[in-house]
């Protein structure tokens, strides 16, 4: 019940602060622009192998936009409560830290889901003029959601570390960018380092989904990543027991 109350309050905060509208519209404008250019590119140059071509590009581009917008959705979740001091009050109500965290995380995931759901309009538009197979799309969206959930968990943790939204947002963006470029420079990095980094790169796990397939290993990896960051968040919240409120 308390997690549900936190969820409802956070969701309302997203929409009354206009943050959700701002993030949603920017996300839709950018992903719409990508869809348009990708479509034009494939119609002119690449033929119409949609799963191999158009959707793969589209999902990879959407992934990049998520990287930049999710820090804006997560940065205030705990940092604002810490700044206002309201977190101190929440800790005196019969609410467990876990319920507090899940309420906030779920509200963020709800906004992300809405954001992704609205992009379904692109394949629907295309389907009016050209047959679109649903399978690869489902795989791509599952991948996007799981990846976004891991991003959000990472951002939630950063937000629990500080009372500054700006710091929380910057740290999240930094971490996500780091996960992204981790495996870029394969030529320059030594082989053993690449072997070490590739398995933990959130982004490399996305390739299979974008190609239209769901690999259980990747699903498990992304869920474990989320759980890892949620555990760190919980640990950070609990650290007040020996650090006090700073």
């Amino acid at each position, binding site marked *: 019940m308390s997690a549900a109350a936190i969820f409802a309050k956070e969701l309302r905060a997203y929409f009354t602060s206009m943050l959700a509208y701002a993030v949603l519209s920017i996300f839709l404008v950018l992903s719409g622009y990508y869809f348009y250019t990708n479509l034009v590119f494939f119609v002119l140059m690449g033929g119409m192998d949609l799963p191999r071509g158009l959707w793969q590009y589209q999902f990879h581009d959407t992934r990049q936009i998520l990287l930049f917008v999710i820090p804006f959705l997560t940065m205030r979740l705990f940092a604002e409560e810490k700044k*206002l001091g309201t977190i101190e*009050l*929440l800790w*005196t109500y*019969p609410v467990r830290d876990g319920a507090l965290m899940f309420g906030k995380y779920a509200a963020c995931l709800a906004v992300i889901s809405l954001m992704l759901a609205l992009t379904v309009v692109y394949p629907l538009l295309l389907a009016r003029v050209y047959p679109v197979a649903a399978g690869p799309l489902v795989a791509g969206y599952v991948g996007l959601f799981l990846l976004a959930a891991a991003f959000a968990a990472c951002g939630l943790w950063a937000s629990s570390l500080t009372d500054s939204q700006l710091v929380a947002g910057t740290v999240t963006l930094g971490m996500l960018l780091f996960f992204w470029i981790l495996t870029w420079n394969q030529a320059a990095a030594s082989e053993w380092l690449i072997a070490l980094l590739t398995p933990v790169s959130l982004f490399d796990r996305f390739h299979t989904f974008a190609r239209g397939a769901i690999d259980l290993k990747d699903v498990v990896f992304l869920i474990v990543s989320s759980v890892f960051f949620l555990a760190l968040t919980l640990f950070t919240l609990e650290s007040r027991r*020996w*650090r006090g*409120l700073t």
Partner: protein
Amino acid sequence: MITASNLTKVFGTVTAIDDVSFHVSAGEVVGFLGPNGAGKTTTMRILAGIFPPTRGAASIAGHDVLADPMGARRAVGYFPEYAPFYPDLSVEQYLRFVGCLKRIARRRRGSAVADVLTSCGLEEVARRLIGKLSKGYRQRVGLAQALLGDPPVLILDEPTTGLDPEQVVEIRRLIASFGGTRAVLFSSHILWEVEAVCSRVVVLDAGRVIAEGTPEALTAKLGAHHRIIVRVDAPRAAVLEALAEVEQIRTVEPGPDALRIVAETDDCEAGCRALAEAVQARGWTLLELRHEPLPLEEIFLRLLRRPQELKS
């Protein structure tokens, strides 16, 4: 209702409170005094369930804060210093949210919110955003959230900080009205306020309880702290000299105005009698002889000063 036994809290290398013990019974309003940094807020945070003590035990309405933290939190209403709030929620939305978190059943939530809106005088602003309210109203919202769900224990950390005198009086009246069956622990460093509201005080300094009891009992413990105001129709210097010789009187000082003299004694009645006799013996007329309890402020200062005095 509130029991603290040998509470100690250590943050890293800093000992915030050390072996703090006290008790607050139902129906009591207890003042929690001490200079800034004495450990009042740390103690209150432990009692409110924000973090556990490093050593020692505390219980709220019979719920141990370590063994049954959720039970203890359910029994406590807490008001933190600088009443925090969500600026973009209305008073009513906020209180409903708190009611939900305090696990007040849905069908009783509406009436519970209405009750605290009434008792804290917030009906008129129920639909306004908290961020748009004056400081005094926000402070009342803070008290309302503590009161919501009718907890048997209230812990209020400096609820009158930053208010204008009129608002202070109102908040004080509210706090006094919270008494009744509840146990209230109320911290402040404004002493006349504590004196007006509390039946007993616990004094904390440098993380330790240095005194506990009613203001009168604290006075008695300090000894030599009955204050007698004397006014005699004779030259002041002569009167001061004459009264200083009286055996039962410890100190004699010129009073706050040109006419009166302040004497201090261990025994109020014997002191008064000896003073009256001394005045009469010299053929002067006694115009005023009045016993005045020591203001809490002064007891407090003396308590704080005493350890150093003892050391030196």
